[in-house]
């Protein structure tokens, strides 16, 4: 199946869900619940909390499928909901009140150009650069870049203070920049690389 065809099916399913088609929701679940569960489990070790987050995610999809504007991956849309439901579930577990009940579409976190490049560099170079980071730095940059969370949300997920997240992200970016700049080769022209990372 071509990735393009899959995405159209997903979007069509979401439109059906918005119209109240429960079987479309079940189909979306069958397609996406597995990777969502695994990915959330990598963020939170408590299986009950993850189960609740997965259920809440698809419930939120059921109630607000209409907020999907059609731009971008359905999978990314689902992840955006899922990770925030996980944070809500963690907050509840820790005893706090939910901030905003049942808002599926959170305000878009503006992703910097640098972060987009970071996510795009999947293999080889990024892997080696990441390997050089400590687990704490890696966790912070993963939460903010890969998961697309705000610093406040990342703080809940990682169980540290917000200031700690910010400083770790900063240190991680500095370390990654220098590690990536040291590596040779790659399709990016030196000019592109300079634009992305600035001068070392």
């Amino acid at each position, binding site marked *: 199946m071509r990735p393009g065809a899959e995405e159209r099916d997903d979007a069509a399913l979401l439109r059906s869900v918005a119209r109240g088609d429960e079987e479309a929701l079940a189909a979306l679940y069958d397609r996406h619940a597995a990777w969502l569960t*695994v990915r959330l489990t990598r963020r939170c070790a408590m299986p009950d909390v993850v189960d609740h987050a997965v259920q809440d995610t698809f419930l939120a999809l059921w109630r607000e499928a209409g907020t999907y504007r059609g731009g971008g991956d359905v999978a990314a849309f689902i992840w955006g909901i899922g990770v925030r439901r996980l944070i809500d579930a963690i907050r509840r577990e820790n005893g706090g009140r939910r901030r905003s009940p049942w808002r599926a579409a959170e305000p878009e976190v503006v992703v910097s150009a640098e972060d987009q490049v970071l996510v795009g560099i999947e293999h*080889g*170079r990024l892997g080696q650069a990441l390997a050089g980071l400590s687990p704490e730095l890696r966790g912070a940059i993963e939460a903010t870049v890969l998961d697309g969370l705000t610093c406040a949300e990342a703080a809940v997920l990682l169980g540290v203070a917000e200031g700690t997240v910010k400083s770790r992200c900063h240190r991680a970016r500095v370390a990654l920049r220098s590690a990536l700049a040291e590596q040779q*080769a790659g399709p990016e022209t030196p000019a592109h690389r300079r634009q992305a990372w600035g001068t070392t």
Partner: protein
Amino acid sequence: MTSPFPDAAGRVTEAAWHADADLLASYATGTADPVVVWSVEAHLAGCAQCRSALSAHADAERLARNRSVLLVRVAVPGGGRMRRLLCRCGVPDHLLRLLAATPSLRRSWLLSVLGVVAVVTGEAAAVRYGWIRADRTGRLAGYPDPEVLAPFLLAAPLLVLAGVAAAFLPSFDPAFRLAVAAPFSGFTLLLVRSVSALAAALIPVVGAAFVVPGPGWLPAALLLPSLTVCAFALAAATVLEPRAAAVTAGALWALPALLLAAAHLPLAIVQPNAQFACAAVLCAAAAVLLARHDRFEWGGMR
């Protein structure tokens, strides 16, 4: 063991690289290296083929369990705006769900109440505004045409009583025996339903009182009698059979209203003297209800 990072340098499109089964398996079970995890997740975000391949390594039983719970949560009505508003005000969600079983909160019931109110109000308004000619006999302290209010004054508290009766009469609850055999307090259930039915019925009735051509204090004056009649019915239900209790309460209002209307003094039923009487009956009814509420914990209806 193939390296998870193939030699292809730089940005790789989905067509060229997919996670193999070992990689997905180690990712699914949490044994993959954290750096590999980042790589796999970044890839999965854009590759549907690998996403479905991952399903094979996931915990099928757990997924199925969450699926059935999800479908149940979807099937249970989440409630409209009203319910969400009340939830935010701190009313426990499970109490609101109990109201779903109350017939007097359903749209069909409320529309019927609205219909009756409209008829009675319309009739009063029609007479007052001269659309229908009527004899004008007997004025009461300067208020025009008090007699046109007689049907409205008769009907208003009875409509509220009807709503509350539908909330507590067993014949209106098809699953009544289940409610009795369940640990949830029968009295709490009854109170929750009755209070909501009372509030729901008061809105159209009091609203109509503003429209009806009568004294300005009429809407406020209807509150106490409506409350009293309903409280009397509930208290009587601890002594009499529920249906008899509701009928008695209705008669307790209807008879004086009809007598006063026949004596050309319909408004007397909401005058201050009557209000004091209502207050006294209300206090007595509340006392009886509090003392004997455990009658509602049994099926009781012998």
